[in-house]
């Protein structure tokens, strides 16, 4: 497998399963020996271009770079950028690439990261382009499953909540479908079922199957992983629909009693009320570990794209 040096990450499918494994191995090494990498990216600068607000993704990337000994420049909303003066994404990225070694971009327009990558001499990482892709969330999810379950194949994965608009779910299904023997349980209200192209991803997978259900309680006992999602207000055109559906699938301690002892509960965060706070104390709830894994996998990604992954271990 070749190095990821100089590559960009725009969508989950940009890396092969082998390349992901390399990243996850690197993330594991970083977690075990963080001191080894604390100056690995010293003298490198990450440009953090957030054209729309984000708390955890932006902080996760910026913390990852700081923990590697690198520096961060950038902005956290479009109003602080030259976009308000009408500058194009292409020009912004081309200019910022003159100052930095790697660029992380979040932008509300779908495909904005591809425009950025086409106009950048340094690696570009997509930190979310509207409702389209969020590949580092997918890497985070896969790393978490690998760490908690010890494998990425032959798993029963329940996906619950907004499966229609939730991009993390679509990306996770696509990424998991390359592993053998994955059985998906798609748990959602009728109005928020997965789009047909996601079903096609499952059908093209390596011996993958799926079951669609409206009932979380009926499926939970069979699962190895329960991936909860937020029903996002901004995805609805109609406030009444949002209010009617947002509480449909709430995970609480009582439902957790029906789950297996080894099942894990994941969530991309932020949550609203789809997981009751009482579940947080349950050892099967791993969503805060998942957030921490996100930082480690981003550290591994930054090192690999900068071609620095071997240096700390020499």
């Amino acid at each position: 497998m070749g190095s990821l040096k100089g590559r960009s990450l725009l969508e989950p499918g940009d890396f092969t399963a082998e390349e992901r494994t390399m990243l996850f191995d690197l993330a594991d090494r970083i977690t075990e020996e963080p001191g080894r990498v604390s100056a690995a990216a010293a003298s490198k600068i990450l440009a953090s271009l957030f054209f729309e607000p984000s708390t955890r993704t932006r902080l996760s990337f910026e913390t990852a770079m700081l923990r590697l000994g690198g520096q961060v420049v950038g902005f956290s909303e479009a109003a602080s950028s030259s976009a308000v003066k009408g500058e194009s994404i292409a020009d912004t990225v081309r200019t910022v690439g003159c100052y930095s070694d790697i660029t992380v971009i979040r932008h509300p327009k779908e495909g904005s990261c591809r425009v950025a990558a086409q106009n950048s001499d340094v690696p570009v990482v997509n930190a979310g382009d509207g409702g389209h892709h969020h590949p580092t969330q997918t890497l985070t999810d896969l790393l978490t499953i690998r760490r908690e379950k010890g494998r990425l194949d032959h798993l029963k994965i329940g996906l619950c909540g907004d499966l229609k608009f939730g991009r993390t779910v679509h990306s996770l299904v696509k990424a998991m479908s390359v592993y053998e023997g994955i059985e998906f349980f798609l748990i959602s209200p009728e109005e928020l079922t997965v789009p047909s192209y996601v079903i096609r991803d499952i059908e093209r997978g390596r011996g993958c199957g799926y079951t669609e259900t409206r009932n979380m309680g009926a499926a939970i006992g069979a699962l190895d992983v329960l991936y909860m999602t937020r029903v996002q207000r901004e995805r609805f055109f109609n406030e009444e629909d949002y209010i009617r559906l947002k509480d449909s699938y709430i995970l609480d301690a009582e439902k957790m009693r029906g789950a297996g002892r080894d099942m894990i509960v994941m969530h991309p965060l932020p949550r609203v009320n789809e997981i009751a706070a009482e579940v947080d104390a349950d050892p099967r709830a791993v969503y805060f570990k998942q957030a921490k894994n996100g930082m480690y996998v981003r550290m591994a990604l930054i090192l690999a794209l900068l071609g620095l992954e071997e240096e700390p271990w020499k």
Partner: protein
Amino acid sequence: MEVNSIENGIVIDHIRAGFGMKVLQYLDVDTGRDTVALIMNAQSSKHGRKDIIKIENLIDVDMTALGLLDCGATVNIIEGGRLTRKVKLELPEKVVDVIKCKNPRCVTSTEPSIAHIFRLVDPSTEEYRCEYCDEIVRV
């Protein structure tokens, strides 16, 4: 019905019946200057009916765009009264600035000076995918 043969130019044959006018509109030929023949609903042994276009003195045409309009047609290049090349049109793998992305959330809707690029997903369904936002369109 008789149409004279041409000395130099193109003959687009096997156009799906009824599509000849659309193809002619796309070619944007100068009907005040060029000699053009559009034959509609001609007999076809393969398809029953077909349209045919003959244009005198025009040779350079965008085969990519023509392939999108009617991938079953054939373009015959005539030079010096002889058939010098025959091109069977196909759906192009990639089209640039022919299809416009209609997704309002796509970056092509706001980013200036950006090409609208679509790639063929499935020839059997004639579906193309936007390079930027993955929006699917059927041609």
